[in-house]
């Protein structure tokens, strides 16, 4: 039986991050890799196991996008992952064919044998080394959904660097913000990490603190076409403190217990959530948009 959150009681949740390197364009092999980590997680009584962006397919897909796309309602691999989620809740990345011929870079949250939510990546980087907009359809929403552990929200990689997206999850009431990523490292002048890793950590610290929410970031490792995914997955608590951190370049199974009661404690002290005014933000945004349409 899953442990349910009782907001009045102390509640410890076990989270695991699978910092892996998927095989590019081979869903079967990656499914096996997922099963391996699911087994590992089950042995450790993990509540929620998180994989990186496009964990079932690999990232640099280009024209392979259509070939590796899955339809969650009818795909047998998806059905097996749903079954596995009876033992451990899962977040993973895949290419979703939602409407016929429209392909999304998606993240699924599965729990208790069901699809709890699917997030479709909104901000598709398309410049320089990135070409997601060329191959994927754009998602349209940032949705907070209810899970056995509280309200959660998901973002995929670049989504997280747009603070408007983070705000929507905050305003929507996410207690746990999950970011899955396939972020290549750039910059070799730093200290034993790519310079770009700092950018994710800085968002992790800021968004967790000012949303008074847990921020879980799962990145991948390995090379694809010379791009080197920078790892460094992490968990920040609602006080903006780093509680777990994976290595920068290696495969890792990062296991961490988090105390969901931290959310309540910090919101008593720092009432950012209570004092938020989405209606004011909304009206101000409308005025901004009207102005640039003139």
């Amino acid at each position: 039986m899953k442990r349910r959150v009782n907001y009045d009681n102390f509640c410890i949740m076990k989270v695991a991050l699978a910092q892996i390197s998927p095989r590019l364009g081979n869903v079967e092999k990656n499914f096996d890799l997922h099963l391996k980590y699911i087994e590992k997680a089950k042995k450790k009584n993990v509540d929620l196991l998180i994989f990186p962006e496009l964990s079932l397919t690999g990232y640099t897909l280009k024209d392979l996008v259509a070939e590796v796309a899955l339809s969650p309602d009818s795909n047998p691999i998806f059905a097996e992952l749903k079954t596995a989620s009876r033992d451990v809740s899962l977040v993973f990345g895949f290419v979703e064919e939602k409407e016929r011929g429209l392909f999304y870079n998606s993240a699924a949250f599965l729990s208790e044998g069901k699809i709890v939510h699917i997030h479709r990546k909104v901000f598709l980087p398309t410049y320089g080394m990135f070409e997601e907009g060329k191959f994927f359809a754009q998602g349209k929403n940032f949705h907070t959904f209810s899970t056995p552990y509280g309200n959660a929200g998901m973002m995929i990689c670049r989504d997280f660097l747009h603070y408007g997206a983070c705000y929507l999850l905050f305003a929507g009431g996410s207690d746990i913000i999950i970011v899955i990523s396939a972020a290549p490292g750039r910059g070799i002048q730093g200290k034993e990490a790519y310079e770009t890793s700092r950018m994710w950590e800085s968002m992790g610290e800021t968004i967790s603190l000012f949303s008074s929410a847990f921020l879980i970031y799962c990145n991948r490792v390995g090379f694809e076409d010379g791009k080197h995914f920078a790892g460094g997955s992490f968990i920040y608590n609602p006080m903006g403190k780093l509680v777990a951190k994976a290595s920068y370049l290696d495969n890792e199974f990062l296991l961490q217990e988090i105390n969901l009661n931290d959310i309540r404690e910090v919101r008593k002290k720092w009432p950012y959530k209570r004092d938020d005014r989405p209606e004011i933000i909304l009206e101000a945004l409308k005025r901004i948009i009207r102005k640039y349409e003139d």
Partner: protein
Amino acid sequence: MKINEPFVEKILTAFIREELSKFNYKKGILGLSGGLDSAVCAFLAAKALKPSNVIGLIIPYGETFSKDVKDAQEFSRLLKIKSRIINISPMVDSYFSSYPIENRVLKGNKMARERMSILYDFSAREKALILGTSNKTELLLGYGTIHGDMACGINPLGDLYKTQIRQLAEYIGIPEKIRKKIPSAGLWVGQTDEDEIGLPYDEIDKILYQLVDKRTSKKDIIASGFKKETVEKIISLIKNSEFKRKLPLIPKISSRSVGHDFLFPFDWDK
């Protein structure tokens, strides 16, 4: 411009190990000139794959660069990698006796392609992937022979400027004798990169770093103290060598074409 050496060493050895394993190679092979870049590449390969899985081919033209051959031999013994000397003068002389020419650049290019041809042959014989040794400075300036020294399976050093390779070489402990050599493409005796390009590497790299990595405008680079002619020369070298960094152009006449919109990853199912 300064790099974190241990981090870069870790990345490049991981890259060599991972790419070879993806393509089912145990061994790597490279041309050893006795110079800095091939020494650094051989060191990284030995670390990534174990020395016994690295083959250094020393491919001189007769006795022209006997000192470099000796340095390359000594260095491969130091690394405990396999090495072999193959003299290309019979093949090259035979060709030029039938088609004589004085132009030393053409002669040098022919030699570079002769070495390439031997590397590819040994790559197949030994089931070893060819590791390239072209650095970022050379790639950007086009200072290399197309289908010659630029030909390889993977190029671990391709995103490091010459000055960064020097920095890495000192950290990993490449012998001073190799590190202090005057960089040369070795197309003829007395040729040096800096004479040929007309600028010292330190200066070239500073300008390239601004132009390429920092995307600084030409105007601002000149304003920061570099000579206008120097900056313009570097820009023109980059511009006129794009063909060396790309596959040959194909006219797009069908609905899906190689080189245009037939877009698959290099690491497909790897």
